């Protein structure tokens, strides 16, 4: 019954309803990327690549039951990922990928704040600071290294303006990881054999990121419906307020009436 009253209020204001419909169509078209004309596909989304590597001991972990260094291999893989964030390593990756070092940002695994710390006065501070650190990175190309904390496997995710550049960046990162595991001798010269083996797990997968200006019909329809609903609600509320305002000051109807 209330719904009929509400519908009746809207029905009696057809002009406002028509304005709402027009507005909803326009906003829906904009949200869908159809307006202004030619905006769809105007911006390119860029490319992403994902690779996984296993950080192995000099004698492969699966080749023998007692390879040297297996007890600390996970910690070393985590530290290796950290090492990639240093300025010299970032520069090396950029050089290998053929891009200026200033255009590249490497983020490692931000140490996840202890869950229990939500109970201490710092509250959300560590989590927020960690998130802020990630958003503070504004470079056209980025590498994120995510080591698995249980097994010596590391994921490498890259972002670049093109898919090809993203793949090249992933390859450059893997190459830099390999070179970073070569131990340095006391005289500063690199030894011949690496301390750790970096083995890619499968091929590098890549994908194009959808451009922000591409057509999203569902989004457009949802935006149009939401706006129309909000508009009609506004009309009903405004009509109600206007009615109340007119009633203010009128003598109250008698009890009999």
């Amino acid at each position, binding site marked *: 019954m209330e719904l009929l009253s509400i519908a009746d209020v809207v029905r009696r204001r057809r002009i406002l309803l028509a304005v709402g419909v027009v507005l909803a169509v326009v906003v829906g078209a904009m949200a869908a990327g159809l307006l202004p004309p030619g905006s769809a596909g105007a911006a390119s989304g860029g490319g992403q690549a994902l690779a996984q590597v296993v950080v192995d001991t000099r004698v492969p972990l699966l080749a023998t039951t007692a390879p040297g260094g297996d007890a600390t291999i996970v*910690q*070393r893989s985590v530290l*290796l990922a950290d090492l990639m964030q240093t300025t010299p390593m970032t520069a090396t990756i950029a050089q290998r990928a053929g891009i200026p070092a200033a255009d590249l940002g490497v983020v*490692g695994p931000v140490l996840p704040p202890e869950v229990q710390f939500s109970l201490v006065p710092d509250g959300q*501070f560590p989590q927020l*600071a960690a998130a802020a*650190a990630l958003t503070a*990175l504004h470079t056209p190309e980025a590498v994120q290294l995510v080591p698995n904390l249980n097994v010596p496997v590391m994921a490498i995710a890259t972002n670049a303006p093109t898919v090809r550049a993203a793949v090249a960046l992933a390859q450059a990162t893997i190459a830099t990881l390999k070179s970073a595991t070569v131990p340095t001798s006391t005289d500063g010269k690199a030894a011949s054999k690496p301390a750790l083996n970096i083995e890619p797990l499968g091929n590098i997968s890549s994908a194009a990121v959808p451009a922000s200006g591409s057509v999203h019909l569902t989004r457009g329809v949802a935006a149009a419906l939401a706006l129309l609903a909000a508009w009609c609600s506004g009309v009903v509320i405004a009509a*109600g307020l206007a009615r109340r305002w007119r009633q203010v*000051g009128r003598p109250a109807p008698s009890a009999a009436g």
Partner: protein
Amino acid sequence: MKSQLLNSARARCALGLALCFLVATVAAVANVRGNLAVSGASALVTVDFPRASVVQNGANQEQMQSLTARTLLLGELMSTPPVADRIAQHDGLAPASLSVTTSYIQNIPEQMFGPDLEVRGIQIIKLRAPYQIDIQPDPNVPRLQIYTRAPSPVAAVALADAAVPALQDYLGALAITAKRDPASQVRVSQVGPALGAVLNSHAKYEIGALTFAIVFGLCGALLLGAARLRAGWRMAARDRRRAAVDRPAPPAAEPRRRAPTAGRHGSGAWRPQADDWPHTTRVLPWMIAAFMVVLWLVPFDSIQLGGASLPVQLKFDRIVLPVIVVVWILALAAGGRAAPRLRFTWVHAGVVGFAALAGLTLVVNAHYLTSTLQLDRGVKQLTLLGAYVFFFLVVTSSVRRSEVPVFLRFILGLAVIAALGTIIEYRFQYNIFYDLAHRLLPGFQVGTAASSSVDNLGRRLVEGPAEHPLEAVGMFTMALPIALVGLIDARRWRPRIGYGLAAALLLAAAVSTERKSGLLGPLAVVLTLAVVKRREMVRLLPLAVVLVVFVKVLAPGALTGVTSQLRPSNLAVSTVDERVVRYDAVRPDVWLHLAIGQGYGIYSVRVLDNEFLDRLIEGGVIGLSAYVLIFLSVVFVAAGPIRGREPVAATAGIVAASGAVGTLVLSATFDWLAFPHGPYILFSLAGLLAVAVKPARRDGQHAGPPAGQRTRLSEPPRKRPAPAPRTQLEPAPEEAWSF
């Protein structure tokens, strides 16, 4: 001219609105003054051997553990005054403006990581520093994360970048003092530059909007209250004048400002109408009923849409309730015969007053909460409280007085189903509510019931449709009085048996949670009933034995288990000890803002398991008083109809008052407001009470039951009511309206 302006109702209304707007704007502008921005930065530091690298040259387990332990030590060292002072010096800060904390926790019990009195006192002092560092060493890998907080991103980054050089300085100086080669020390190096940004970029707008809304609302309430007071005085003066002129005046000639057919507690306004729920096309009562089904049978707080991919947690109630509230607002605006009718009672004052005060605590503490990054949490909790209040308002304005008995019976029916499910969970370790939610709500993330798990005291986690056993106890406690009052008032055997069975099921479900509160809550309800219905309860004493037998049969072992927990020899358990420890540990937080508290919903230092302490810390003495006043307002409003013995209003009063007292008792045993089932249900009962005691004008147009109409809770429905003529004003016989 002035008096003419003030005599115009529209002018007064416009003036009031303008005044509220002005005051709220001034308050909002004043509250966002100053630098509210808090920035944060993060930097990673690794610890390595002096010459060789762990990554490149390898390390055995022992060496790695040693290096990790040394990292923990360095992390602790960084928060000591010598290193902290050096960090301040490196960053060009006054040492007093910087606080450094090292925090890492491993598997230790809650009593140990929850800060005690002294630690918490120091934490509070440290929280006031404008520059802060939080150091978190990794317990497994030789590295530590540095988080900094400062007024600007540049300052936060600079502070993070200053930490490692300061530590290196200190270690170098230490080596020289100990006559050791600094090159033989562990290498501490920062991995890449620190990165930082503003952490609360929207704080200014949030505080401004919150302040405006709260102050505008309070101002409006004050003006409305003043206007009503003034109107009351004027009316009283007019009556006195009239009485003086017309003496002797006919008694009770003018029932002022009240529906003409309603008595003090609405006697004579109980005539059921043709379109009463459930025989109605009005959508709002149906929506309320549907939401009540959700409240009683759906574990909605464990059901979420979209998982973690959405920026806000879309719990099930947050999807359903907004639809009801939007329809309610639109129906209110559209007007018409079926439109909701607003009422105002002292229960409204208690509920809305508490919510307004909760908002005010956030407004008053906005700067402190922004600097500690707790404002968002408070606003989220305030939104949840707003949801409870809106549901209360929807109930009080959309339900008719004549619908109150039907809704009470409906609630009892839902409670009995919930109780049956809980008993089944106790006996068969199968939670039907969670299972059905899994099956019926595809696309939602539904939590899992831990029906077969036990807590550290060996008690089963029987939750029913709730998220915690104590929450379930609260639900059954609030429904119990409906069954008991029905049992008392039943005149015939069939309803008497039905209500008795319902009471037994509710009791059995409460104790099957295996919590001590499962006995305390119902006991509080029974004692309240014993106070208001002494003779009737005495008559029921023999039935208590039957009830106990039923409970023992329905939930074997539960009653014995709970009673054995209450023996003095069994009270020295961790759940009791932890609570006792907390009473001492929260003192610094209580004293921090004793009058108005730290802000509603922000306390997260410890789980207190005591709503009174939560209210005291978050709302101060005023907040605690406002919380208790919610319950007292329910009891106060219920007292009238209970004394008046007007049957339906009396029943609504007894049910709401008993539920309120039971909840008040349970508030001492768990954080009641943190679990949404309880507040929603209590506010719905309080809403029904408000409807029962205060008629909307339209409700008051009807009186007296038509022939053959169902008039008691305990009587089965006979016939759909026929519409009554509006002019029929004969009051119903008392006996015919009793439950």
